[in-house]
């Protein structure tokens, strides 16, 4: 299990990098390079979804319980992926892969659900209308995440 996962390919992390790219020691670099941008975005969405759902659940839970609970679930998934990306390692990579798939499923399900039965959602969630209110980033993130994590596995072999 000591295979090093240093990204040597990728998109030109070569010269401008000042040698910091592989700073994770022997750890697979799922949280470095392009992965670092994913960490940033997942971190932002964790904070956003978590604080949003905390405020909504504590102040007006009755208004739209389903929407608010789904926001909280989204926050948990985001938080888990963020931690997995930062920690690195093969186990974390697989866990993050599963979570990204779950996230994609969640966005597609909730997105379709909100369009098919808007009355179930008096208030919006992060995943409403496929994340349209968030510039479709909630839809783009898991796809990017899945591609990135799969790519990390390929480079390992």
């Amino acid at each position, binding site marked *: 299990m000591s295979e090093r996962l240093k990204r040597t390919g990728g998109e030109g992390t070569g010269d401008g*990098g000042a040698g910091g790219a592989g700073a994770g020691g022997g750890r697979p670099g799922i949280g470095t*390079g392009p992965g670092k*941008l994913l960490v940033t975005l997942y971190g932002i969405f964790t904070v956003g979804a978590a604080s949003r759902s905390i405020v909504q659940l504590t102040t007006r839970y009755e208004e739209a319980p389903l929407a608010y609970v789904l926001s909280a679930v989204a926050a948990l998934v985001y938080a888990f992926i963020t931690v997995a990306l930062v920690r690195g390692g093969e186990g974390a990579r697989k866990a993050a892969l599963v979570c990204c798939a779950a996230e994609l499923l969640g966005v597609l399900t909730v997105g379709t659900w909100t369009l098919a039965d808007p009355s179930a959602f008096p208030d919006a969630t992060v995943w409403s209308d496929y994340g349209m209110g968030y510039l479709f980033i909630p839809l783009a993130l898991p796809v990017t995440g899945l591609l990135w994590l799969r790519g990390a596995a390929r480079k390992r072999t």
Partner: protein
Amino acid sequence: MVNATIHGDWPWQAGTGGPRDGAAHPSRIAVMLTPLTVALAVAALALAAWCGHAAYRDQPTKDWHFIGMGVVTALALVQLVVGTVQLARGEEPADGTVVFVSYLVGILCCMPATGMLSLGERTRWGSLSVVAGAVVLAVLQVRLYDIWEGNGV
């Protein structure tokens, strides 16, 4: 200056004139918040473009970028203070105080957080992280305005 005095728009006069109507007589401080919001959004977008350029040229964030992040963070700090003063004077954001304050704090954290990330990732991806943070900050400015004015979603 003279007008403001006549209308009693000074902070220390807040308690003297009975119940104040913030909408009819916007205070000096309240008048500051919107331009500050615009300034922060513009500064953040400029920083995003700048760091985006660095990423495009395959470069990490440099000292000058960090100075830029410092400027944006300083503006965010001023915004936090101005917003807090407004709350202390009894004016209320349309969407609630808690949401307003958490946005102010979140805005303040944007640049330090992504700046730190870019210190740990000395590649173009670190620069792109700062771009993401700056764009989020600009979006938060729009939301902050909605929260204050009450025309939000």
